[in-house]
């Protein structure tokens, strides 16, 4: 059963929070979603089927050589960071 406390814990793991009213909305959405999801679990012999994670059935994964190529310059990489020191993004001390 899905409770508001469980939803809050999932949000916390994703590093955000919502206000109480939004959790209420989400609870009522979950009611509909879980009923829709039950349609999946009613399908016969579903556990005999291999999960599909890629659209093509006959895809060959290829590996390329690990060659050094041109990449971004450090100042490009840091262009969108608000706080920087030299070639690093600045954040509060991790270890007090």
């Amino acid at each position, binding site marked *: 059963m*899905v409770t508001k406390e*469980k*939803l809050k814990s*999932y*949000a916390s*793991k*994703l*590093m*955000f*929070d*919502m206000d109480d009213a*939004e959790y209420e*909305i*989400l609870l009522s*959405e*979950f009611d*509909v*979603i879980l*009923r*829709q*999801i039950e*349609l*999946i*679990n*009613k*399908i*016969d012999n*579903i*556990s005999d*089927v*291999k*999960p*599909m*994670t*890629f*659209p*093509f*059935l006959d895809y060959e994964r*290829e590996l*390329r050589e690990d060659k050094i190529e041109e990449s*971004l310059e450090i100042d*490009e*990489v*840091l*262009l*969108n*960071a*608000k*706080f920087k020191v030299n070639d690093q*993004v600045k*954040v*509060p*001390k*991790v270890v007090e």
Partner: protein
Amino acid sequence: MDYRYSDIDTLRSLLSNNETTPESLFKEAKSLAHKYQSSINPFVTIVDEYQKESSNSYIDGIPYALKDNFSTKGMLTTASSNIMKDYVPVYDSTVYKKLKEAGAVLVGKTVLDELAMGGTGTTGHTGIVKNPWDLSRMIGGSSAGSAASVALGIVPFAIGSDTGDSIRKPAAFGGVVGFKPTYGRISRYGLFAFASSLDHVGCFSRIVKDAAIITDILKGRDKYDMTSLSDDDKVYSELLNNDICGKKLFYFKDICNPEYYKDSNDEILLKTLEEFHNTIEKCREIGFIVDEVPFKKDLLTAIYPTYMIISCAEATSNNANLTGIQFGPRAEGDNINDIMFNARTRGFSELIKRRFILGSFILQKENQEKFFLNASRVRRMIVDDMNKLFEEYDGLIMPASGGIAPHFDEASDRLSDRYLILENHLDIGNFGGYPSITIPSGFVDNMPIAINITGRQKEDDWVLNMAYKIEAKLGFKGQIAGGEDNV
């Protein structure tokens, strides 16, 4: 001169004969973009200065619009989300790079549903996109602004992305062509990922031929996208006139039968299905064989929850890097965790957070088997059954939607067959990576309706060819929202 109705061939001819210039076309498009911005809101950014690389390509000098989830170096790219509102990419997406090198002229970056996770065009951080055919209605999403910019005649083509119908549904609601090629046909490098196993790059246009021309320019292997396909060395725009006589199409029996809904008092649905069957007759008149074929109802009703589970789970993972540290609005906090927490709490809309929480729920260890893996199994079952049908048939033809573009305040019963099947069957094109195109097929209550044709994997040329022939028969090519009077 009014270029709104002009397709790429016409503009190419005008440019080649020096009857206009690329800069003049850009200025006209930019003027139209500004004219419709406050009433329709298609754009996040309208390009101010004319910029073009020189090229001998067929689309040299042609103006276009680009969905704002494609990276454009030095130009704001927001994914219509507050958490990206100041983000300026430091590299170009492959799509943008190819269009620049082909000499196409970017007019603006278009509004989408936040992070491409929506189907209404109402959740972008710069406001809702209205349907140019009726301002009280949505145009759908997530590629809302791209659909609107083409429907209004601002540009002859626009680029979008399609994870679960996000090109093909707004195309239907906007009365334009929306093409989603085979998965990997066009590189996704530089497209902000939503659900990587479902994401496709595609385009909007007002005629099928223009969709073929653009796909010819954009397709091909990209070393930066290892899922991209090697070029099939076909020129789609030169294969549109191949003979389709005897080509076999099918549609889902029962679901497309008005009798199935006879107890419903949904007049719009019944009219849409009536028009669909009129379209089927026209397809037969030009030589298609069209059959109604049964498809397991339990799989059809499972399409929507399968899509929701897979897409929310993949999206939750793909967007874990949006923290406000290396880019995005930096929030306050005594430690790095608080900074990320506050940035994400403020930067994502409530709708997106609800989707992410659903994704997190699905990916909890105790839920993975029952939800994520079972949804992935249903995906395979649907694709397996579709591939069996594609051994006999050349394409699936269906109404693109069970009706017309909804009003903004319209509620829908999300457990009805109409919602679960008719509004979501386009997801099949994403599950199997099939090439799939929506083309206008008429009007119901003065709003555009459309059909969708989905073909075998990697047979993009045939899907475009079949759509080209049907488009010619139906007679709705090249239309502009509102016609001469416009909005």
